[in-house]
């Protein structure tokens, strides 16, 4: 039992060792070694459709990753299973390895989010790795909208997301990355050593749909450069994998603009192989980016499920 469990989070360890951008950071922290108990979190969320409702049929967890139970509070989609991801350490530290595995069976509908922003703390040894596997079977629908990532100065963070999606399923998956704690001190803004965010998607039978590897490397490349971040501080990157007819309608309703006065830029492109859309947002503040993600979320819900968004929580 233990060996098969270990295999489930072994990819996080293997990834960190194999990535060229992490070659210089293989030293061990003076505190707890990398990948030890308490630093290797694992969470499997298996959603299944039961009647008209989606249930969290399979939950496996290992601290510091955990989830409690599915909640049903969305009045617009009362059968949608909501799960809040919890990391008991409240942040990512050097040597942490997190593995998240989300699987939706046929016609299951779920919304997964985090409790709050994920801080990636400053590092003087090693790095933090997050590995995510998302599997959607026929007609499944997943909204995966975690809160922003806040990389602290000298953070080294690698994320790898592998998506397997049936042609009829829909995945809305967002990632918001801040430049750092820019209001704390100016050296925090783009102060992370290296942030690597890779996403790859494929159909269940194998064909590759698309790959994106964003490598934020402020030591080698100028973040403020025209075409990179320019005057903006926060990136929103949203992937909408959905059948082409939905993607066409969603794209029709989306606008694209760079507004240097209000400090926001956004636009969507079609992904290769009719996989769906990718929507990028830049903002000077996180709230602007979150608002645009919510706007897209509303459009996707209306076009794919035919439901509206409920009003936002006052505290989110």
């Amino acid at each position, binding site marked *: 039992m233990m060996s098969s469990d270990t295999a489930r989070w072994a990819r996080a360890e293997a990834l960190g060792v194999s990535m060229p951008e992490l070659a210089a950071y293989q030293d061990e922290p003076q505190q707890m070694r990398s990948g030890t108990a308490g630093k290797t979190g694992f969470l499997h969320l298996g959603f299944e459709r039961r009647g008209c409702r989606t249930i969290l049929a399979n939950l496996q967890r290992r601290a510091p990753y955990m989830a409690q139970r599915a909640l049903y509070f969305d009045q617009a989609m009362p059968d949608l299973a909501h799960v809040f991801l919890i990391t008991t350490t409240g942040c990512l530290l050097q040597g942490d390895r997190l593995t998240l595995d989300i699987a939706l069976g046929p016609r299951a509908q779920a919304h997964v989010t985090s409790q709050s922003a994920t801080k990636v703390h400053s590092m003087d040894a090693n790095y933090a790795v997050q590995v995510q596997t998302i599997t959607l079977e026929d007609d499944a629908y997943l909204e995966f909208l975690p809160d922003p990532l806040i990389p602290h100065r000298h953070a080294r963070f690698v994320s790898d997301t592998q998506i397997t999606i049936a042609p009829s399923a829909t995945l809305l998956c967002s990632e918001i990355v801040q430049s750092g704690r820019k209001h704390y001190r100016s050296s925090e803004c783009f102060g992370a050593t290296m942030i690597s965010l890779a996403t790859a998607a494929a159909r269940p039978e194998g064909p590759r749909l*698309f790959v994106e590897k964003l490598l934020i490397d402020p030591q080698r490349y100028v973040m403020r450069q*025209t075409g990179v971040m320019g005057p903006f501080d926060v990136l929103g990157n949203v992937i909408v994998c959905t059948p082409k007819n939905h993607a066409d309608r969603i794209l029709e309703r989306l606008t694209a603009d*760079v507004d240097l006065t209000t400090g926001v830029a*956004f*636009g969507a492109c079609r992904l290769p192989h009719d996989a769906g859309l990718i929507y*990028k947002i830049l903002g000077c503040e996180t709230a602007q980016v979150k608002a645009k993600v919510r706007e897209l979320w509303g459009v996707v819900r209306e076009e794919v499920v035919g439901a509206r968004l409920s009003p936002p929580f006052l505290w989110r």
Partner: protein
Amino acid sequence: MRTTTANDCFEALGSAISFARMLQFGESMFPIGGFSFSCALESAVQKGVVTDASTLRAFTLTAVEQAARGDGIAVIAAHRAASAGDVDALIHIDGEVYARKLSDEARLMSVRMGKRFTEMGAQVIGAPLLRKWLECIDASVVMGCYPVALGMNFAIQNLTAQQAFVVLQYGTASTILSAALRLMKISHVETQRILFDLSGLTEAAYESAARAHLSSMASYAPLAEILAAIHTKAHVRLFMS
């Protein structure tokens, strides 16, 4: 980690012929349609992101850096695969390049220029590998992206991977700069200065790309990608990207 292989920089052909062929297949007059793309400069000028020589230089530098981190690695990998006559590897590289073209217009540009470059090569040079690759494109076995066509063509001509990489980088910069002459108030002297300046970065960029594995192809230019998205929605367009 891969080290630079012997034939990557080896001057196999007489250097005068080699330079002439590199110029022929690398210049902007080569009829593969590069002149019809602006790589999102058109939107950048319309939205006030690029306004003068300084912002144009920075925008072009971003494009050149992104090319070196992505397509440049594929050009070198394709050159190595073609030198070894490994068609399966070329098919794999082509798939990896296409899967990373996340903007509609970047895909269109890569596929269109790749096919024309292969066609021209097949007709001018007449090598069996180029004819076979063209059949693969026509049969939709491959998409036929430009970096693969370029690396393969140069390997067949016994030109080096470094020369193919230089053509990619130079072509990226010159496409944007020649579009700039038609899109904004800028002089030939200013665009040539930028081109001269950016060419000075090619050596280090090649060394880095030649060491990288295909899976290391990466990017980070969100503002340029948003500008590309704006271009696809624009009603009035002078350029195709």
